[in-house]
């Protein structure tokens, strides 16, 4: 999948929030690409834009293209999108609690996309759902199919969501903070499932998270987002071993680690900017310790560091 100059804005009473402001990247077959950033960086808006799930109003995709098998999804008909969503491109969201319908059994919800897209009869759909539940590690699957979401724990609910998302064997899975709400030990288990699936099904995963620990465990490539734009992108080793953008430095430096106890933690001075009427130049300018006059004048382009490693920073022009 190729995303080109995507721009998604939210038109509010207070002004136009430029949530995604010119974002381009590609998602390759069988890779896990992580979109990383803090609140308001635009990572979720980007993911929702791909499947045109952005609330309109107040949101609107004002520019850009999402190329998938030669087709621009942003120009596809509603019918075509429905054929693709849940079938070729699936999505799971942060809070499984709010994504699962409380009045239907978990089994029914996993079977729903199977029956809808694969047009299987009830019995074959049920069998496929059972096999998926076992694949994601839900014990006593036959019995638990009849359970309602409230009878499942957080980790189990997320596994059920993953099973539902995988049910039609999608090419791409978009996962928005799928492990954030889960306990430490469960987080690790769910990530193992993702890793396993990626390998077995050669599936591409667009994984959105703010947690760099999670990223280190699953990403092949990483895109660091800030203020609705890409700050830096590269392989997982590029970003962790050789980070180049001052924001990435800040982010990596302020993480608490078990191996190290510090007298004082490093943090990034200032606050995350408002995306209404963003300034002319680099959006990280007010908080950057390496800023130069040019940074305030014009927005930086994406400059190559090496291979596929790029940074949107004048330090590398």
């Amino acid at each position, binding site marked *: 999948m190729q995303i080109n100059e995507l721009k998604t804005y939210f038109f509010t009473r207070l002004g136009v929030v430029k949530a995604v402001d010119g974002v381009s990247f590609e998602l390759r077959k069988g890779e896990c690409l992580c979109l990383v950033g803090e609140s308001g960086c635009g990572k979720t808006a980007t993911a929702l834009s791909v499947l045109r799930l952005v609330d309109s109003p107040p949101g609107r995709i004002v520019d850009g293209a999402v190329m998938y098998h030669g087709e621009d999804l942003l120009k596809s008909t509603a019918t075509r999108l429905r054929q693709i969503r849940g079938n070729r491109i699936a999505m799971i969201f942060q809070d499984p609690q709010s994504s699962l319908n409380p009045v239907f059994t978990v089994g029914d919800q996993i079977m729903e996309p199977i029956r809808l897209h694969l047009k299987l009869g009830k019995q074959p759909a049920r069998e496929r759902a059972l096999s998926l539940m076992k694949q994601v590690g839900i014990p006593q699957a036959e019995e638990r199919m009849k359970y309602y979401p409230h009878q499942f724990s957080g980790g189990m609910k997320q596994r059920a969501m993953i099973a539902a998302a995988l049910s039609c064997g999608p090419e791409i899975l978009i996962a928005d903070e799928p492990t954030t709400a889960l306990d*430490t030990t469960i987080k690790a288990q769910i990530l193992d499932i993702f890793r396993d699936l990626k390998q077995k099904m050669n599936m591409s995963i667009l994984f959105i998270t703010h947690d760099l620990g999670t990223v280190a465990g699953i990403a092949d490539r990483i895109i660091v987002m800030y203020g609705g734009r890409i700050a830096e992108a590269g392989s997982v080793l590029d970003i962790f071993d050789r980070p180049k953008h001052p924001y990435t430095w800040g982010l990596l430096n302020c993480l608490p680690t078990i191996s190290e106890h510090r007298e004082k933690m490093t943090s990034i001075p200032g606050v995350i900017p408002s995306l209404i009427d963003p300034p002319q130049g680099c959006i990280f300018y007010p908080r950057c310790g390496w800023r130069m006059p040019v940074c305030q004048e014009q927005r930086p382009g994406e400059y190559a560091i090496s291979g596929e490693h790029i940074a949107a920073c004048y330090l590398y022009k």
Partner: protein
Amino acid sequence: MVRKLLETEGLKKYYPVTAGLLARHVADVKAVDSVSFFIAEGETLGLVGESGCGKSSLGRVLLRLEEPTSGRIIYRGNDITSWSKHQMKALRREAQMIFQDPQSSLDPRMTIGDSIGEALLIHGTGTEKERLERVTELLQRVGLEPGHATRYPHELSGGQKQRIGIARALAVNPKLIVADEPVSALDVSVQAQILNLIMNLQREFSLAYLFIAHDLAVIGQVSSRIAVMYLGQIVELASRDDLFRQPLHPYTQALLSAVLLPDPHQPRKRILLPGEVPSPIDPPPGCRFHTRCPRVMAICRREMPKSRQIDENHLVACHLYD
């Protein structure tokens, strides 16, 4: 000689479960099930555990925001378990709380200044002018502007709201602060700022903290000692270094191995715990952890292990160390 500020003995908090039209008491959610520990003056005791382990309930019961079911709470040598409301009011000047969600712990209809000064008003501290001065002083102390006093919560960011929560807790010069997940809802860069604030305040005011969190890296950053909870009980308690270097309890070992380090080079040899956490309504007999323990023995299924002192500062409740 360690000066104990707060101590608990066999503290329990059960929430009754009722059923039927007549609301018969049929069972109990054993949220806190006999917990004994102490917090020394000026130290930070970290309390870590996953959902349902009882850490938040424990935090609230310690300050008697909820009443304990049984056991004792001792503050500076006084048994405060059954203290009256009047007596507790005086104690509240010494022991305060910071909550996880800065959004819901601030009254949206009160200005920031009023929220911070409310405790001073309740305790009848100073004149109005003196209270105003104190609020200004506190705002600056937590890294905000005096001008913030006239704003409302909705005008502030998550990090700023959390700073207000801290300012409010500091208003009465407490000796102990129970911080329940104070940074979980914050972005990483903001989290670092707030943790620095918490650590600086400790040095400046010799504060003791009970720092409750699920993130081991955060707990490790601020705590001198750490208690690990599972299903209502403390399974291990040790100094920070001892816990990370030599975790004894199988649950602690699994928890540490599950932590996702922001380092792609880490060889991950994860201890995977089978199954799920059992319900605190019907915890397993014997050791609560036996259903998922990779080193379970016959005795674990029958007998609950007692907490044993392994080293000077290291306690563990596990039959492996009997």
